[in-house]
């Protein structure tokens, strides 16, 4: 396969914050319609990788193509730690702002089904500053669904969501995959995602230390933790 036929193609991808490298020389290929889970500890570079893929960071080194093109903005929907929301606007108004920029219908009737889908139908007219962290996350997901980009990037999809909502996230990932979206997730939940994704990438200190099929991820993750314990002990 040539590098241009991948949904995501990265080679030697590196990103620096000040003097330290958050991501150093990561290679990555994701075919269209596949789902990739990126695992690793906090600070291993997962979020940086997703922000690079979305286009909110510029790589310091390396090559990155989305569907064979270096242009990234507008081609991937990102659900990140920062919710991309205006605190003083209501949930509905936040979605209206997004819809207007996308030249999509932005009436109340057009957006209420979406609010309902993420379980915020009753809170749509409350300002975001009154929302809990979980509700912000749900609204942020609604925002990404509205964008309807061919690639969906979910940073810690289970974060801030209470355990009863986990199954809802699982179903959401399934729906996105059924729609033919390319999905990239960054998460600690290796056991849970092993069954939901095709491929897996394990990051440690900004480097890719393992990649393989998602089913083998829990074992690889355990091996990495084992190595770490040995180093700590030795």
């Amino acid at each position, binding site marked *: 396969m040539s590098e241009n036929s991948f949904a995501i193609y990265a080679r030697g991808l*590196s990103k620096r914050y000040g003097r330290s490298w958050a991501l150093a020389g990561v290679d990555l290929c994701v075919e269209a319609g596949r789902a990739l889970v990126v695992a690793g500890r906090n600070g291993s570079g997962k979020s940086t990788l997703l922000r690079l893929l979305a286009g909110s960071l510029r790589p310091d080194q390396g090559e990155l193509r989305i569907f064979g093109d270096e242009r990234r903005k507008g081609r991937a929907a990102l659900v990140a730690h920062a919710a991309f929301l205006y605190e003083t606007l209501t949930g509905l108004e936040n979605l209206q702002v997004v819809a207007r920029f996308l030249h999509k219908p932005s009436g109340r009737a057009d957006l209420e089904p979406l609010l309902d889908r993420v379980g915020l139908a009753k809170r749509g007219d409350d300002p975001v500053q009154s929302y809990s962290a979980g509700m912000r996350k749900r609204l942020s997901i609604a925002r990404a669904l509205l964008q309807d980009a061919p690639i969906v990037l979910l940073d810690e999809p289970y974060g801030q969501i209470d355990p009863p909502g986990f199954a809802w996230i699982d179903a959401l990932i399934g729906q996105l995959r059924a729609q033919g979206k390319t999905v990239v997730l960054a998460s600690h939940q290796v056991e849970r995602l092993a069954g939901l994704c095709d491929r897996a990438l394990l990051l440690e*200190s900004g480097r890719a230390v393992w990649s*393989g099929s998602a089913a083998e991820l829990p074992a690889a993750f355990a091996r990495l933790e084992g190595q770490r314990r040995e180093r700590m002990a030795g």
Partner: protein
Amino acid sequence: MDTHLPAYSPKAVKRAWLALAGALGLLAIGTTNGLFVAPPEHYMGDVYRILYIHVPTAWNAMLALTFAFFSALAFLWKNDWAWDARLEAFVETGVLLSLLLCVQGSIWAKPTWGVWWDWDPRLTTTAVMLVAFVGILALRHFVDDPRRRAVWSAVATIVAYASVPIVYFSVQWWNSLHQLQSSPKTVDAVMVTPLRINAFGMLLLLLAFSSLRSQLARRRLARELAPPPAAASLALGGEG
């Protein structure tokens, strides 16, 4: 992504030191001429002799900021880090020369008009540009990420430089009591020669300082932009 990594060039440093020596030589000749050979001026007597250093400073201060402006444009256009190093050098030398110019202007204004500051459009524009570009140096100081530092200071430099003409005209209209611009043609040839020598001396000084400063900036950039260190032995195997 980023095209060129800047390289430190010992050759350029050697050239800069030669230029510096030439600059000091020219300035010594020009200033000796201006102080001892040129006759005293009809109205101002010996006070006018500060012009031999003041006018070359003024020309070169403006020249340095003009170079900074073009470096900023070139950086945004070409994405070449060498232009960021030059931008830093020219902004700093421009600030230095503008500061000198304001000090010399005050020294001249006191015996001539009896005040330390005269709201002459050229001098006032220089003072405004001085604070504007000091602000840009402060911006560079506060931003650690080299890419952001380069882009943002280039943007600020372009906007500041683009406002030079309107600053000048607004001050000129605001204070329409000022002397006409002196051009070398209206002055005696004996008086003009040292001015020209000093102008070239100052130009060489500007180029020497800027070149040394930009080499210093290149060294820092090369450190900041160094590629990530080679991978430690973390690999777990797997399919790769």
